[in-house]
């Protein structure tokens, strides 16, 4: 019984982490329907930047994330203007290829600058744990999960309450209607990409103290974050959070009761199943079709 409880605790916490990693992708893939194969790469760039700040200035990774957020947002903007905007018009398939290329280039630069050896940050809490009854709650995962909740709420509030958020919702739902009130969908796209990339800073920070990372860690995270977004239903920030937790619990239970090695297959298996059976995701209802003419 305790074993189940522990598996659930781990699952929920790690699920929160997954949701955190996926936040940017919910916006780009979910709202803009752009497959950004460089999402994992951006995540790892954030990780390395947080690592660099920790190493040189002793800055706690979570605090470092607030600093790293800004250059990452700028990176997102540049990528959107130079690559995405141009290619989406020609052929969405090319965007996938080009962002994949970007991921490779990024990985290469990271390897050239920092080398291929494993790194990790080790702030005070990284191997501490809180004990609740007989359950062990690792502090690092707990902080990451809390961070996930905070970021999710912040993003959700931005979308629901600010002019920009409304413009984003409007432009993604109804581009022509949006243009009629003066919203320019292309500019909104640039903002979304910048915010999405900036938000990877927090996922990157968490990654830095939860795992040992190398430049090619990005591959694994790409598959995982795609799973979260697809399961959660495109465009729903809250859905992505729920999906992340579900994924985490599924993995945790698989590890505890089946085997560790199959656990890594859980996300990709779920993608395949969901995309073929219920493409709109587990947590969104099929949208109402507008009346035909």
């Amino acid at each position, binding site marked *: 019984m305790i074993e189940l409880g522990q598996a659930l605790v781990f699952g929920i916490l790690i699920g929160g982490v997954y949701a955190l990693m996926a936040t940017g992708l919910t916006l780009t893939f979910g709202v803009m329907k752009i497959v950004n194969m460089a999402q994992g790469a951006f995540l790892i760039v954030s990780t390395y930047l947080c690592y660099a700040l920790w190493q040189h200035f002793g800055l706690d990774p979570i605090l470092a994330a607030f600093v790293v957020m800004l250059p990452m947002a700028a990176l997102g903007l540049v990528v959107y203007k130079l690559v995405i905007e141009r290619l989406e018009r020609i052929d969405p398939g090319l965007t996938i290829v080009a962002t994949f290329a970007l991921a490779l280039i990024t990985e290469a630069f990271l390897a050239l600058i920092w080398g291929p050896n494993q790194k990790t940050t080790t702030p005070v809490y990284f191997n501490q744990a809180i004990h609740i009854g007989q359950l062990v709650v690792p502090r690092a995962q707990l902080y990451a999960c809390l961070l996930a909740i905070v970021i999710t709420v912040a993003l959700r509030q931005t979308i629901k309450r600010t002019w920009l958020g*409304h413009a984003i*919702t*409007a432009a993604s739902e109804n581009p022509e*209607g949006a243009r009629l*009130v*003066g*919203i320019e969908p292309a500019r909104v796209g640039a903002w979304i990409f910048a915010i999405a990339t900036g938000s990877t800073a927090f996922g990157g920070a968490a990654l830095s103290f939860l795992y040992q990372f190398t430049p090619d860690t990005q591959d694994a995270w790409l598959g995982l974050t795609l799973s979260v977004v697809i399961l959660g239903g495109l465009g729903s920030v809250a859905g992505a959070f729920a999906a992340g937790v579900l994924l985490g619990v599924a993995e945790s239970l698989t590890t505890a009761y089946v085997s560790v090695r199959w656990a890594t297959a859980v996300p990709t298996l779920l993608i395949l199943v969901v995309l073929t059976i219920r493409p709109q995701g587990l947590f969104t209802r099929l949208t109402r079709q507008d009346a035909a003419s």
Partner: protein
Amino acid sequence: MIHIEGLWAGYGGLDILRGVDLRVARGSINCVVGPNGAGKSTVLKTISGLLWPRQGSISIDGVDLTGKPPATILHAGVVQVPQRNGLFAKLTVRQNVLLGAYIHRKRRKHVEQRYDQLAQRFPLLRERPDTPAGALSGGQRRAVEFARAMMLDPKVVLLDEPTLGLDPASLAIIRDSVRAMNADGVTVLMVEQNVRFGLTLAGHATVMSAGRVALTGTADEVRDRPNLMDVFFGAVPGRT
């Protein structure tokens, strides 16, 4: 007020407007009627900057607005209520109406005051501001769209088939709203499929067919013209 000359516009290789000349007097209610494919909605789209004309010119209140982007047209005081999909289903009534003043979003106080003003005239804004627009009925949605159009205190309002999808009982409400708008000094240019409704409401009328203006005059002249259907659709054998 609105001065359109020799307008040619279309999509891809297809020309829908083939030399449209149209004049709308300040303060009037003008209705454009005609069969589908005639280009009625295309004229409105071109005025609002959603479509670039190939040839011709559009000027409003003396200002040349040909080929300008939608935001510029809005700044010039020209607002459009489109045929369909005018509102954003996921946003609330209040959010939708406020978005009407998106180009003035930096002036938060001013925008909110305007909303409160309009809530006097449109009770839905007072009573159900937090309802998602997707949950409203057709008539309610039109009312919200009209409210949103008025947020910018426009000079010209373009209405694309305001009665589309509405039951006959709602027609009277639309008629009253348009008259109220006009009483505030707004020039109205509307496209209507419901010919009788449009020509009863408007002061001036234009009949379009195959991308051109076929007939224009006061609403009474056009409406009382015998065999209007013929002008509308072309000669129908069996009826002289």
